[in-house]
């Protein structure tokens, strides 16, 4: 049994590649693969329960969580990078550490933002028992970064809308989702349409 799949994209695409591999395997196997040893099949972990019962629930929770994240992140940048630890209310320590670098740079450069960023969830990428991943379109068209003199320091080439893949985890039972990772999506721009 030979399986070929190719993909491009990101870390979080592994899951979809896996799914694609399964589909491709099924397609390629329609003919003659049956007699071959299928190999050991991983059995589902009996203790694992999905984070959400339905895709709709997961999407709604992710949308809410990203909204909170964006609001806090906007507020920190609006304040010139002050009190970045606010982000820990809406993000994991790991994600906070990553963002902190930017906030510190903003503070060192005496830059602050104006305007609010918006987003729309494009599609659910996946749900596991620990994580929700979604495609979303971040819209920065109303956001500017100004220096001390009030001059914009944003690159004139900056796009307004960014396709991203955001991951969410639940820090504790019954807690709201928080952002655990954000990748820029380098594949097909699903925000264009």
């Amino acid at each position, binding site marked *: 049994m030979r399986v*070929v799949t190719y993909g491009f994209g990101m870390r979080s695409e592994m899951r979809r590649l896996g799914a694609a591999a399964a589909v491709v395997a099924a397609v390629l196997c329609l003919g003659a693969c049956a007699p071959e040893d299928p190999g050991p099949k991983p059995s589902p972990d009996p203790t694992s329960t999905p984070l959400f019962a339905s895709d709709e629930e997961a999407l709604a929770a992710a949308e809410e969580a990203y909204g909170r994240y964006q609001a806090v992140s906007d507020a920190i*940048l609006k304040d010139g990078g002050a009190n970045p630890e606010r982000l820990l209310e809406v993000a994991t320590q790991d994600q906070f550490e990553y963002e902190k670098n930017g906030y510190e740079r903003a503070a060192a450069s005496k830059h602050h933002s104006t305007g609010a960023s918006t987003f729309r969830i494009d599609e659910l990428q996946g749900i596991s028992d620990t994580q929700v991943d979604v495609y979303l379109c971040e819209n920065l068209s109303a956001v500017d970064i100004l220096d001390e003199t009030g001059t914009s*320091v944003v690159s004139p080439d900056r796009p307004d809308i960014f396709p991203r893949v955001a991951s969410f985890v639940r820090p504790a039972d019954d807690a709201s989702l928080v952002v655990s990772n954000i990748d*820029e999506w*380098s594949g097909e721009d699903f925000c264009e349409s």
Partner: protein
Amino acid sequence: MRIIRIGTAAAVALLLTGLLVFVSVVPAWACDSYSLTLGEECPPKASIVPGGVELYDSNSSGDGGGGIGTPSPPRQRPENVSLMTPQERIAYLAEQRALAEAEGRVWRDPFWFTGVPGAPTAPITLADIASFRPVTGGSGMEPNGWMVTGLDTNFFSAASVHVVDGVLLGTPAAVRFTPRSWLFDYGDGASARTSTGGASWAALGLAEFDPTATSHVYAASGTFTIDIDVEYGAEYSLDGQTWTAIAGTLSVPAARFTATAGGAKTVLVARDCLANPRGPGC
């Protein structure tokens, strides 16, 4: 529900029946909110390889990677090397290199110098402008992630002349980077140094699998790692003064692709060419 935007992968899989191996290593990009809002180019963060092994940043390679079931080490995010002082940078890179070696990963410094940095009389050398990070622009390969043996695979890099602002010797300064040459290491023992970064087939007005200045024909099947490096010449300008050339060139990794070559026995297209005009064979 979970099979989304995999049309190309499925098409390619169907196209290349009879091939072994799946490999995909494409850098993942991540921006912090500040960098994203500024419109900065952000560094690659992680790559994927088969078997669930995560690689950390573009400087890693899968050579020492583990197999299926290898637990992922904790996420490590690249520091912003360009913001460090030279001393910090050297220490950071040494630390990363040691860490990578301890974990069996291969480490390449984000920058390395070729040529002789700085004539004796020149006050500024390449080492002085280490904090000015050239951007390498986009790069690509066609077909994306795979090759057909005996046919041309097109690689390209959009690196171009650009100016990076920063501080040099405590003075606002700008460094202008000009691509002098591109080094394509095709991973099968062949390499090329070109004076052009090449372009996509579409941009060149060519058909798929046409030869280009930067394309390469793989003779044998296999999985190959392709590296594109850009050699930049650099000039600096202090406080808006005239441009002064800096001796030597700066070699910057622009892209790494890992892709599989195989023979195409049967050409199948997952969707028809009307629905997917960019699909293989359309």
